[in-house]
């Protein structure tokens, strides 16, 4: 174990922070001023940093030094990523580490508060082949019934998820190719979803959230696949769930005019809070459109609006998480913990907690609620009326300062 270094240093914490900050061992070694081999030893647990090195290390990666001596919580279940491309290995590791930090934040806060009870449909599939389209539709219906959403458009998908006990994080990740990830936490006994805020599109964000919800319900007990086909199959199942959850067949189909046109769907887009592309996919899944019909609409969509954007994308602001933010507000308002002590309690940098909990930047630096307004000194407010009738305001003179 450690040799002359800080007692109780956890190498896993170092691995976690390397992933979260997207730093290589060599880069970190350069920043801390030690050799890469030393960092490797710290990481493997065969050596622990000296006090000064730990302070430098903590300052470089922006966490509390003491955080490295806290036992890491049990890992969350392995998340499923939209993109399994090898180019995104570091990005996936970073997102996974951020999700684990979100788990740490929620765990630290759950010492003081009870979060909403977990209320999700339970499915025990162990193989994606067991999941038929009918099973997916039934799971989506059950979810809506559990959450008392009826069959109309869901006003706020984030609110519904968090009300059902899901811990939701929405932050800029710098990896726009991976829209979100989700996992079950055994320590918290509840699921977590992390959404990327990089695209800033309210319609896509709702669909991404419903997609992750599909993974949490349908794929909870399925071992994460390595084969490409299996991964794709599970992604399609989560997509189908998202469509079924956001656009229930009975109510959505009755509003769709046939033959379907892009303009009709644009009108429905705002009402249902779902993009035209996702609606075309849903209509295909419901067999209202055949393969040829959906391809034709996608082709027209690309021709009219391009491949990525759609008209009205900016009409709906992305839904914001509330649970962690409200919990921190509650602790502060009820004087359970002073605002500035919260980052210390959690062990992460104030900026990281602000991002994970959706708090405004500088939240933990705020001293109080008293706002001081600037007041003109008496000497400065003396205006001199010139002979021409104009008003001359003199510059403040140092001699007037008290």
């Amino acid at each position, binding site marked *: 174990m450690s040799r002359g270094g800080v007692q109780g240093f956890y190498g896993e914490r170092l691995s976690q922070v390397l992933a979260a900050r997207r730093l290589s061992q060599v880069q970190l070694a350069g920043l801390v001023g030690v050799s890469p081999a030393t960092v490797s030893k710290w990481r493997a647990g065969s050596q622990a940093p000296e006090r000064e090195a730990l302070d430098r290390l903590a300052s470089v990666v922006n966490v509390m030094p003491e955080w490295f001596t806290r036992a890491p919580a049990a890992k969350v279940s392995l998340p499923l990523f939209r993109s399994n491309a090898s180019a995104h290995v570091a990005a996936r590791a970073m997102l996974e580490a951020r999700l684990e930090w979100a788990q740490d934040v929620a765990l630290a806060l759950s010492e*003081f*508060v009870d979060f*909403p009870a977990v209320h999700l449909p339970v499915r025990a599939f162990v193989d994606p082949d067991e999941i038929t389209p009918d099973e997916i539709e039934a799971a989506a219906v059950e979810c809506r019934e559990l959450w008392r959403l*009826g069959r*109309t458009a869901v*006003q706020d998908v984030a609110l519904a998820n968090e009300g059902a006990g899901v811990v939701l994080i929405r932050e800029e990740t710098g990896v726009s190719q991976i829209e979100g990830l989700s996992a079950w936490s055994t320590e918290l006994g509840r699921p977590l979803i992390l959404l990327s805020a990089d695209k800033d599109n309210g319609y896509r964000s709702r669909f991404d959230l419903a997609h992750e919800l599909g993974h949490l319900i349908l794929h909870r007990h399925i071992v994460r696949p390595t084969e490409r086909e299996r991964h794709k199959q599970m992604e399609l199942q989560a997509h189908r769930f998202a469509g079924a959850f956001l656009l229930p067949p009975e109510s959505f189909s009755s509003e769709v005019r046939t033959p379907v046109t892009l303009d009709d769907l644009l009108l429905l887009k705002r009402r249902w809070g779902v993009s035209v592309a996702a609606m075309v996919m849903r209509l295909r899944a419901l067999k209202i459109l055949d393969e040829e019909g959906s391809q034709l609409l996608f082709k027209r969509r690309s021709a009219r609006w391009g491949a990525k954007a759609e008209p009205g994308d900016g009409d709906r602001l992305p839904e914001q998480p509330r649970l962690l933010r*409200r919990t921190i507000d509650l602790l502060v308002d*009820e004087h*359970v913990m002073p605002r500035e002590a919260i980052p210390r309690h959690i062990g992460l940098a104030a900026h990281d907690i602000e991002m994970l909990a959706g708090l405004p930047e500088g939240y933990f630096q705020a001293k109080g609620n008293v706002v001081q307004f600037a007041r003109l000194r008496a000497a400065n407010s003396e205006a001199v009326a010139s002979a021409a009738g104009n008003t001359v305001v003199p510059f403040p003179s140092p001699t007037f300062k008290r």
Partner: protein
Amino acid sequence: MPQLPQESIPALLVRNVSRELVMGVEDALKSGAERAYGAAIGMDEGHLPHVVGQLRHFKMNETFHQALAVGQAQPSPIRGNGLIMGRAGIFTLGRFNIPAGFWVNGRRSHIRQQMALANKALEPLVQTALFEQYVEPAAAVAFFVACFSGSLKLQPEGPVAIHIAVPDHDMRGWLFRECLSTFLQRYEPATSTTQPDLVTPKLKQGQAAKGEGAA
């Protein structure tokens, strides 16, 4: 001034006429119109509009009758030129066609006018009376009204809109009328206009007391 009662005509319709029946009638009227136009194709241009109109009457009566039967709405038998009527809860259901625009065709049928008399009991729901109180009626009348473009050059194979309409007692005005696509949304369970906010973390027992002490 007397207050309007809490009850409303659309709420009465939703309670008495099932969503499945309304959707069945919607499909029936569309398919009836389509069959009528299909059957008239090839007839002489000189009387084609009349042929289409007449065929619509018969074909749509047939499909309407079928939809009422499937929806267990006790349809009256098909006999000659007679109206087809069904019954769902307190409502007697009928149908007629009109050209889009002014609703001129409603009063043409003497039987329809007689049927509409029952709706006097619904009028206090729209306009309060000084001396009469609203009492939930035992009978009322609603019509499915298929609106056609009025020209064989514009969507001749089907109605441009189908409404559900509740006439006043002398069929000179409408107490309620709404396009079926809008009306069908009324069947969605009223989950309240605002989604419930359940994102409420609660302080664990003991933490609140600690907090008060700190304050």
